[in-house]
């Protein structure tokens, strides 16, 4: 079980970088209008901004374009958008508050499934699954025909001209 725990912990660590806000953030890339439009929402339309053409979306695009032209970083633009429209403007939930569950629930569910699988395998092995009727000893290969069977086999083979 200790080994299983170590595997689970390693998997959890491997999965954590997928959750923004939970892992160390890399250096902030320069803001790009096109990239940002694919990462934020049009709050009125409920779609990604890059897909929206509503009047509100046009104003939001102009707002982003102005901030990009001012040389703001992507994080700064997103922060400004959140200040204007709230956190729902972000296409990906932030790694805090209830939004954190969007990242944690799949990880926790995966770990629980892994532990349940490990426990199931352990119980199956303890109950003798995968072993012969002789307990820990491996099942011996089946014995060849003996006695009456051997005599009948020999008699049958003798009928053929091999």
């Amino acid at each position: 079980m200790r080994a299983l725990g170590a595997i689970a912990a390693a998997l959890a660590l491997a999965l954590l970088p997928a959750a923004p806000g939970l892992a160390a953030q890399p250096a902030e890339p320069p803001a790009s209008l096109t990239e940002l439009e694919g990462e934020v929402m049009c709050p009125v339309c409920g779609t990604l901004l890059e897909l929206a053409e509503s009047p509100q979306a046009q104003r939001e695009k102009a707002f982003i374009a102005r901030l990009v032209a001012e040389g703001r970083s992507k994080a700064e633009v997103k922060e400004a958008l959140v200040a204007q429209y709230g956190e729902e403007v972000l296409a990906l939930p932030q790694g805090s508050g209830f939004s954190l569950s969007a990242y944690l629930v799949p990880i926790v569910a995966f770990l629980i499934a892994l532990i349940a699988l490990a426990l199931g395998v352990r119980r199956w092995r303890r109950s003798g699954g995968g072993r012969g009727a002789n307990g820990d000893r491996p099942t011996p290969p089946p014995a060849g025909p003996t006695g009456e069977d051997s005599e009948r086999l020999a008699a049958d083979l003798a009928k053929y001209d091999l």
Partner: protein
Amino acid sequence: MLAVLAVVGLLVYGLASKGSSGVALGDEAPASALPRLEGRGEGSLSEYRGRWVLVNFWASWCVPCKQEAPALESFQQRHGGPRFTVLGVDSRDLEGDGRTFVERYRLSYPQLRDGNGEAAHEFGTTGVPENFLVDPRGRVRLLQRGPVTPEYLREAVAPLLPGARS
């Protein structure tokens, strides 16, 4: 089993927190605190308890909102006072755009800012503009989905305002 219950609980919480809401005639109007569009601090519909309030949800990018703004300002000029006010709520809008709108149409009534649309959601709006007449006890007495006109204000709203100048 506990894990399943926990996941189901989270889903239910998520749905409940984003579920449908809204007000009907006779319901108590939501009175969440919102930042003021102009100036500092927060304001709320509850500040106007004891007065009739026409809550007007609008946005600067909304064409019908531009059409109704002069009618609302005119109505405020005529009926606004200790017993009535229009209360604008700028919803899902850029703050700067909202302020420019207020200046352009010379709106004198108080304005709150509902950037994330939470207040609009609480009222159950389906878009902008929408108008809710709230009585002095905080109950919704009229509901207009869409822009108000001078005729609507004169014929539907004004008669409900006791003591208002006519």
